Structure formats: structure tokens, C-alpha cells
């Protein structure tokens, strides 16, 4: 039980370090047990070092830096417990253009999981295989428009 948790914990931590670097192009991330002597009862702390900056408490990170850390953790958990598909609703809203581009290529290169992403970010739209436009020409009634990739990212 304790060993199983430790093994999974190590896997997630390693995965988190990798996903964080891919998403930020640098920097590092770590997960610590608040009480390493008591693996089963200990809480967990997350440490983030954005590229070029010092290691910091999550609380002092900017809105975008927190979002990237959260996205990296989500993907770390996914790597350890794969799901055949994921629905992501505007999760990159707080990211600047550079971070969106890295996020989009991360999704693009992620094998074995199909992603449905709801987005209004151009960078994400540009790496999608298929684009679906939802509109309400008749007020209050949703319909679908098929879109080609060029016209949507005007």
C-alpha cells in the first residue's frame, strides 16, 4: 500500500518535471511530501521554478505561471493514469502567446489520447486537426458550423 503509493508518487513527480519543462521551455517543478517520514499520511507540496527564476511558493506565481503549473500537473497525472480522451474547456485562457504555442504543440505531440479542446486562442486552433464552430444564429439555439482552419484563425 505504502510502496504502491511511493511508486506512483515517484512516477507522477518525474512526469511532472518533464511536462513542466516541455510546457515552459525551461524551468523546473517538483512535488514534495510535507512529511517524508510518513508517506501515507503526509500532505503534498508543489514547488515551481519558472525559467530563470528562483524556486517559489505557488502563491507568489503569476496567474499565467500558476495555470502552466496546473496544466503540467494535469498532464503528469494523465501520463500515469491514461485516459483515451480528455475534454479541456479553455484551460489555457491565462497563458500568453508564447506559452499557448508550447501548450498547443504539447497537445499535438501527445499520443494515445484524443483531445476535445474548447478554446478562443488562435495558437490552439492552429494545431487542431479539426475545428468546430458553435454559433447561435437563432438566439438561444446552438448550432454547428463546419469551419476550415484558415477562416477561423483570421
Amino acid at each position, binding site marked *: 500500500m505504502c510502496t504502491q503509493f511511493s511508486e506512483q508518487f515517484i512516477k507522477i513527480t518525474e512526469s511532472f518535471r518533464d511536462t513542466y519543462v516541455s510546457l515552459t521551455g525551461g524551468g523546473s517543478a517538483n512535488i514534495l511530501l510535507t512529511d517524508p517520514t510518513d508517506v501515507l499520511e503526509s500532505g503534498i507540496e508543489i514547488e515551481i521554478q519558472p525559467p530563470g527564476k528562483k524556486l517559489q511558493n505557488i502563491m507568489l506565481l503569476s496567474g499565467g505561471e500558476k495555470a502552466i503549473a*496546473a496544466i503540467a500537473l*494535469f498532464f503528469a497525472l494523465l501520463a500515469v493514469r491514461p485516459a483515451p*480522451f480528455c475534454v479541456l*474547456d479553455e*484551460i489555457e485562457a491565462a497563458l500568453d502567446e508564447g506559452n499557448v504555442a508550447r501548450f498547443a504543440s504539447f497537445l499535438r505531440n501527445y499520443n494515445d489520447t484524443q*483531445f476535445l479542446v474548447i478554446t478562443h486562442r488562435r495558437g490552439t486552433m492552429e494545431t*487542431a486537426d479539426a475545428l*468546430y464552430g458553435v454559433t*447561435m444564429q437563432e438566439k438561444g*439555439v446552438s448550432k454547428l458550423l463546419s469551419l476550415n482552419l484558415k477562416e477561423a484563425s483570421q
Partner: protein
Amino acid sequence: MILKNITLQGFKSFADKITIELDGSVCAIVGPNGSGKSNISDAIRWVLGEQSVKSLRGSKMEDVIFSGTSTRKPSGFAEVTLTLDNSRELLPVDFSEVAITRRVYRSGESEYFINKAPCRLKDIYELMMDTGLGRDGYSIIGQGKIDQILYANPEDRRSIFEEAS
């Protein structure tokens, strides 16, 4: 690519029957505020068995049924069908394609189907168990919710890890 298509009828703002063919490993849904994008995410959550109205942004289960506009009557029921590719035999059934359907009437009466055969909600849960989907919390991330994975206090975060374990 496990999701083939999703059909919505009478579900939230999708008054008319709409089928979305999901042709890719990264499918992007775009559109103006309030057009219905997040409703599609709710539909997927719902058809996989979500029972918490709060997770569906409603106050009662009836809130998922199209409630009408000044020019349209409300719907009598809401129905969503999610069709999955099972050629890799990820799901414990003998079909190469699996269609999961959920329907709810204004009376509150619910119906569930797997490939058009009536079943119970429990059967849908059991079908989706071990796929990493449906009730695990981190394969569907709702709007504004991504930060929560970090904010949970250390004890809560740990329980996410244990679930992953």
C-alpha cells in the same frame, strides 16, 4: 481516436438534433460567448453518468433540458449519444463501436442505452470503469477549473495522487 461522434438533442441550448463528427486527435471547439461550447462538455459528462447537477452548472436535473426561447417551445426531453470506437477493445463488450445514450424527460424519468439496448446507469459506469474516464475528475476539465488542481490543500492534493495510484 476513441470518440467518433456525439449527438445532442434537446440538451441545454441544443434544441435541434446535432451530430458532431470528431475527426481528429485534437478537435477544437470555438465560437462566441454563450454559443454553447461548454454545453458540449456538459453533455459528455452527463452521458457518461454525471449525477451532480452542480457539476452540470444547474440546480436540478431538469436544467439540462432545452428550456425554450421567445420563439421556441421548451423540449420534452434531453438526449445525448456518444459513439466510441472499440476496435482496440478498450471497452469490455463485443462491439467494434459502442454508442452510449442517456435520455431524461421533464417528469424526471431517465433512460439509458448501450448500442440501443436499454440498460441501467450502473451498466454505463461499469462499461467505462478502468478507461480512466467518466467519474475520475481529471479527464474532463471544466471552464475556470484548471487551477483547482493546485489550490487544494496538501491533504486534498494527496488524495488526487492516491486516486491516480
